[in-house]
């Protein structure tokens, strides 16, 4: 590296008060100057007669960008891309957006402001500044306070600036020159040593990750939690004579409440032989209504008309008020709940037998309400 033309004259001061005074005096004479201090000095912008920073407008714009993109994304997702009912709330539930919009506003406002500051004020990616790597910069970033006047200042004259700083009581005055990069100089990032260290670090990190997730987690003591004295399904066991861990039920018995459904795949037989064991009392109907609203209404609608929110998004769920369903015997309805039909899955594991019969009663009530006879209205 060789010295280029003069960049600036720098001056170091011992105390904050001295540099504050020097900044004020320098501002009277020069325009292309700056102050460096190890920590923020209150009142410096006033002493330097700086106009209010415009960073605030950047922050505002970035913040609004965050708000708009958060609200926009969630609006698009919930209204256009994947409308979904959550907790029975409307698709466009703005209160739920507020925390996310708030966070994204803060995030973009802060992060992008820093990026903008680095790009606009520090002229990133240019990281070669004449003041870097000087004694001046070393001191002002630890224990002294500095002012410098650039050579490009219209009122600049080397002797005049030196005299100016000396009068203000500077403890050290230096000249700083532009750095001219040599032609042969390669960017440090391509040095073999650096690349080697980078490669080694990458390999070590990948290896450590692999070992941790694939080996270490299955070693003592990390596997203690999964090592439990119990039998797992489908695993062998020495406890039993035949070496099989899982025990078959005693031959010729059925567990309580697990009697197999005798009409599997036979809806007509179900209709013919099954009778509703429950009486349509108020309690049974209430039970049926509650279960209907939980399990049936999401597709068939609250009144069984097939008009739920899902209508149009799947093969439309049928109405329960068709002649076909109304003329079915109770057993057929029970059979469809138990086994499912077309797209409808089996509800046998979710709704108990009694509840299924209660639902059948309630469906009958709904059907009657929709097709009331003359005598019902009287």
């Amino acid at each position, binding site marked *: 590296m060789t010295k280029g033309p003069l960049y600036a004259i720098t001056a170091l001061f011992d105390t904050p008060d001295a540099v*504050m005074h020097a900044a004020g005096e320098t501002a009277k004479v020069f325009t292309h100057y700056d102050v460096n201090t190890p920590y923020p000095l*209150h009142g*410096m912008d*006033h002493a330097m007669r700086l106009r209010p920073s415009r960073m605030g407008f950047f922050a505002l714009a970035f913040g609004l960008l965050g708000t708009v993109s958060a609200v926009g994304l969630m609006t698009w997702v919930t209204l256009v891309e994947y409308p979904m009912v959550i907790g029975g*709330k409307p698709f466009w539930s703005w*209160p*739920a957006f*507020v925390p996310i919009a708030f966070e994204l506003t803060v995030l973009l406002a802060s992060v992008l402001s820093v990026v903008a500051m680095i790009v606009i004020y520090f002229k990133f990616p240019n990281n070669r500044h004449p003041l870097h790597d000087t004694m001046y910069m070393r001191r002002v970033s630890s224990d002294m306070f500095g002012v410098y006047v650039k050579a490009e200042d219209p009122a600049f004259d080397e002797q005049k600036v030196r005299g100016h700083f000396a009068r203000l009581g500077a403890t050290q005055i230096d000249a700083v020159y532009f750095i001219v990069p040599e032609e042969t100089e390669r960017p440090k990032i391509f040095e073999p040593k650096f690349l080697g260290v980078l490669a080694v670090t990458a390999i070590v990190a990948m290896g450590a990750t692999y070992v941790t997730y694939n080996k270490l987690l299955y070693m003592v003591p990390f596997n203690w939690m999964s090592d439990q004295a119990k039998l797992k399904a489908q695993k062998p066991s020495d406890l039993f004579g035949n070496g099989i861990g899982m025990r078959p039920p005693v031959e010729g018995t059925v567990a309580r409440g697990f009697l197999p459904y005798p009409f599997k795949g036979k809806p007509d037989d179900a209709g013919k032989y099954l009778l509703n064991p429950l009486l349509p009392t108020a309690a049974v109907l209430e039970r049926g209504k509650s279960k209907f609203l939980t399990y049936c209404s999401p597709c068939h609608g609250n009144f069984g008309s097939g008009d739920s929110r899902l209508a149009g998004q799947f093969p439309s769920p049928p109405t329960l008020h068709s002649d076909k369903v109304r003329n079915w015997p109770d057993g057929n309805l029970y059979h469809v709940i138990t086994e499912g039909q077309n797209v409808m899955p089996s509800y046998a594991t979710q709704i108990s037998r009694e509840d299924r019969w209660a639902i059948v009663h309630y469906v009958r009530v709904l059907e009657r309400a929709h097709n009331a006879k003359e005598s019902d209205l009287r």
Partner: protein
Amino acid sequence: MSTTAIPENVKRPMPPSVVHLGWFLLAGGLIVFLGAYVTDARRAAFDNVILLLFLASLAAGSLFLVALEHLAGAVWSTPMRRLIEFLAGLTPLLPLVGLPLLFHLHDLFHWTHAEVVAGDQILQGKTAYLNVPFFVLRFFAVCLTWLLFFWLFTRNSLKQDRTGDQKLTTRNARLAAAFLPVFAITLTVTAVDWGMSLEPHWFSTIFGVYYFAGTALAAVALATLVVVYLLDAGYLPPLRGDNLYSLGALMFAFVNFWAYIAFSQFLLLWYANLPEETFWFMHRWEHGWQVVSISLIVVHFAVPYFALLPQEAKMDRKRLKIMAIWILAARLVDLYWLIMPSFGDSVTLGWQELGIPLVATGLVIVVLAWKMQRHNLVPVGDPKLSRGLDFRL
């Protein structure tokens, strides 16, 4: 660096015309309240609760600001700290403001009706806290605690005016550290007792913080108002926009904090959608309350937020003055929105409610006048004062 001379003795009473205005407003407000109590005691009691919570905000909030300065070692606020101490002088009046309410507990609180509690399992479970003797005890205990700290803070501060003893600053800082947790508990108790227990079935764990957000905001707004007025009238040594900036920034911060807390409370109840919680907001959405609820968002958040957003707004005396008055008015709207739905289903606003701002304004002026007559307006003995007068952002 230029240094502002520290004034030796700054004592200047309020002009008699303003003091008279204060007494006049106070008397007018008391007459309104008397009339309200005679015509409809139950309604007057609810208005009285709003007044109590508003004045408690100003008094305890001012104590909080004083403690905050001591604890943080803040410099910018030292030249105006004495005025905030004056405003904390509202503390001794709180028991008087609350006194009429103790005779109307039956009108205010559902849970004081023994026959209702007997048939209500939820209220029965809360009787350990919600019973009249403990309630009255809590009220006086809270008032006494605040009074004690007010007395200690101001005694040390005034003593320093005469002696200039720097140890008093350290003592006040330690006192502030002790006060802040006490403040958190007492303010929560106040909010729960006088605000939340009006609807004893409802509960919100954030309610105390909600009241605190408003309290701090009201105190900063009142401090800003008084400081800027006295500054304009030449009562204080010249302060720069740099000192005022922090007042504006605190107002802005607490406007945001209030909105943050208010929305947090709403969001959780809205999300969970449980009938035993949502009825509180439903109550504030029906029978005309919808207008009050929406205007609260505009008045208490949107307007002050955008008005205080630019940096100049936080330094400009005129704008600060307008926003301080605006925020104090918004605090009344918030408390009205908080308390009055418990009085009746529909929005009730009439001459009876006029007593609240009248008494509050009157009391602030009278207390301030009384204090200004007796004490220095600036803590002249405080070692931080000269730095405070030269404060730069």
